């Protein structure tokens, strides 16, 4: 048993939590954001709490569908539905990102809703990250980070000093290091934590102030030292994909006879894998980490690097198979899946591609596919 794990799981199940409420009560501003390319360190250095927007708790997309169509990604439809239902009323601002066109469009929609319906908050900022990693892109990204810092300073009357940024980098690196420590334990033959639980941990950590996250992760690391999951007869799998927050979906996969011991999910392991350098110009270090090290299919001409990274994960964690997770109408993961399928044939690792609507149900077909896939993997091994 781990008390801290139970606390964290509960945090993952809801969008507003006592840590965020307490931070707001103490006068800290809460800034929502949507994508792994938005640098939390800069928001934190401006004295605010970065908070990743999730669909958790959303029951429908009725209001969201008034701005989006049914062929838009269900994550953005759920999140915008929540926004229109004032479920993000506790936010002091939202930072949007050109991660994909569906997410980028939310900036337009939210702005329109702000102008026509008074949907808060007032601070809505479009943060733009390049899609390539050339030197020109790096300079462009540096400019964007500086602009972002200036905007935050001016709007929130904050002083974003070099020292503050260095401190923020240090504490976010600490969080990454703790998450990496947990991931290291997942390499054991009997890992201490299920993949579904780890997703809850990773999701919850983006919904609370980093200081609380570090405390909880330190405690969790201690409590997991003696926890072991019996891996006998279970396959070890790796999950890759974009936004994933449905813990019960991973539970369903694991209940078919596997443990998800590693992941490269946007809302999972991808966030922790590489730290920001703690020397030199801090804003350049942030730019370097976010532009070059976030393994996301939105980046053009980077597939070989992403594939190599995934291959290394599969080797390090001794996984038997890969499951990719794609939300319907996600163009980025549609392309990535196709390329990964070629890699799976070339390298000979079994791969299953699942496609779903966020919180969309349809477990029956999905379970059949997953169970048959695991049976197939075992057949190939025998």
């Amino acid at each position: 048993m781990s008390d801290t794990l139970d606390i964290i799981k509960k945090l993952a199940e809801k969008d507003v939590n006592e840590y965020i409420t307490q931070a707001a009560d103490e006068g800290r501003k809460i800034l929502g954001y949507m994508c792994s390319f938005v640098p939390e360190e800069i928001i934190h250095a401006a004295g605010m709490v970065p908070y990743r927007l999730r669909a958790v708790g959303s029951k429908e997309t009725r209001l969201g569908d008034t701005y989006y169509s049914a062929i838009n990604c269900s994550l953005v439809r759920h999140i915008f539905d929540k926004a229109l239902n004032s479920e993000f009323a506790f936010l002091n601002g939202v930072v949007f990102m050109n991660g994909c066109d569906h997410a980028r469009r939310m900036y337009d929609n939210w702005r329109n809703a702000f102008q026509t319906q008074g949907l808060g908050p007032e601070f809505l900022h479009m943060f733009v990250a390049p899609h390539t990693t050339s030197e020109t892109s790096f300079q462009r990204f540096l400019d964007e980070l500086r602009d972002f810092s200036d905007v935050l300073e001016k709007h929130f009357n904050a002083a974003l000093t070099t020292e503050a940024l260095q401190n923020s980098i240090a504490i976010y690196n600490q969080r990454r290091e703790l998450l990496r420590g947990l991931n290291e334990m997942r390499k054991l033959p009997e890992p201490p934590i299920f993949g579904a639980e780890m997703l809850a941990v990773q999701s919850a950590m983006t919904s609370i102030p980093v200081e609380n996250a570090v405390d909880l992760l330190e405690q969790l690391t201690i409590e997991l030292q003696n926890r072991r999951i019996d891996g006998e007869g279970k396959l070890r799998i790796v999950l890759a994909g974009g936004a994933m927050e449905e813990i019960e979906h991973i539970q369903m996969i694991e209940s078919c006879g596997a443990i998800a011991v590693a992941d490269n999910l946007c809302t999972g392991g991808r966030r922790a894998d590489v730290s920001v350098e703690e020397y030199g110009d801090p804003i350049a270090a942030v730019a370097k980490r976010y532009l070059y090290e976030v393994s996301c299919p939105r980046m053009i001409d980077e597939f070989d690097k992403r594939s190599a990274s995934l291959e290394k994960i599969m080797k390090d964690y001794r996984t038997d198979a890969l499951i990719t997770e794609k939300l319907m109408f996600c163009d980025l993961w549609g392309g990535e899946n196709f390329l990964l399928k070629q890699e799976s044939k070339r390298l000979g690792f079994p791969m299953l591609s699942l496609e779903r609507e966020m919180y969309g149900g349809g477990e029956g077909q999905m379970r059949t596919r997953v169970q048959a896939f695991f049976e197939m993997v075992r057949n190939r091994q025998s």
Partner: protein
Amino acid sequence: MIVAGCDVGSLTAEAVILKDSQVLTSKIMGVRATAEKSAVCVMDLALAQAGLKYSDIDACYSTGYGRQAIPFSQKNISEISCHGMGAYWADNSIRTIVDIGGQDCKVISIDENGLVQEFIMNDKCAAGTGRCLEVLAKALDVELHELGPLSQKARKPINLTNKCSIFMELEVMQHVYKKRKARDIAAGINNAVAKRVASLSKSVPLKPNFAITGGVSKNVGVVSRMEKLLDVKFTPLTVDPQIIGALGAAIFAQKENGNHD
């Protein structure tokens, strides 16, 4: 040794009882309100026919969408593995199985032991399934089992252009209103369903010999069109192709509980 397999799908439930590696009896029926009720009903019928009691069964495995809810089953196995094993047991030269069930269709590649090596399953829509045929047969006002023989008499099959079952239904109704011959519409329906499944088949290596299973395998129109589209010949199976899933479950029960024949 007496073993059983129970397959509860979306439209029908099947039970197969094997005694000493021979099919003792099998039963097929339409599903009831719950998977559990369907399983109990179909197994009761099979046991009664065989003159057996539940306690006579040494092992029973389940498959199909309702596989987790079957109270008398010791283990559940996916219908993909069960169709592979069932078809292999019926004819051990089979390496590729096309299974068209009530609400899904699969193409399954098996090895020389009947074990699944690759598979593909529909996940975008149900236009290549039994349910789609059921809806279109109703629009044409013929019984489901009539679609196959009727289509064989066609001279000018219609072309259903829509990919969605609902729009296909509207298209069929338009052809009915225009007084096109029922046999030509029936052929168009079968061709459309065969085309959907054939396009799915391209994702899996098609190794001979081939078998077609599931309820739709009884529709001669779909089967003959599939053979043309895939340029293959389906090997006729010695057992009812609709019980292959339940048969596969029974074979797994036999293999894993002592008898490895």
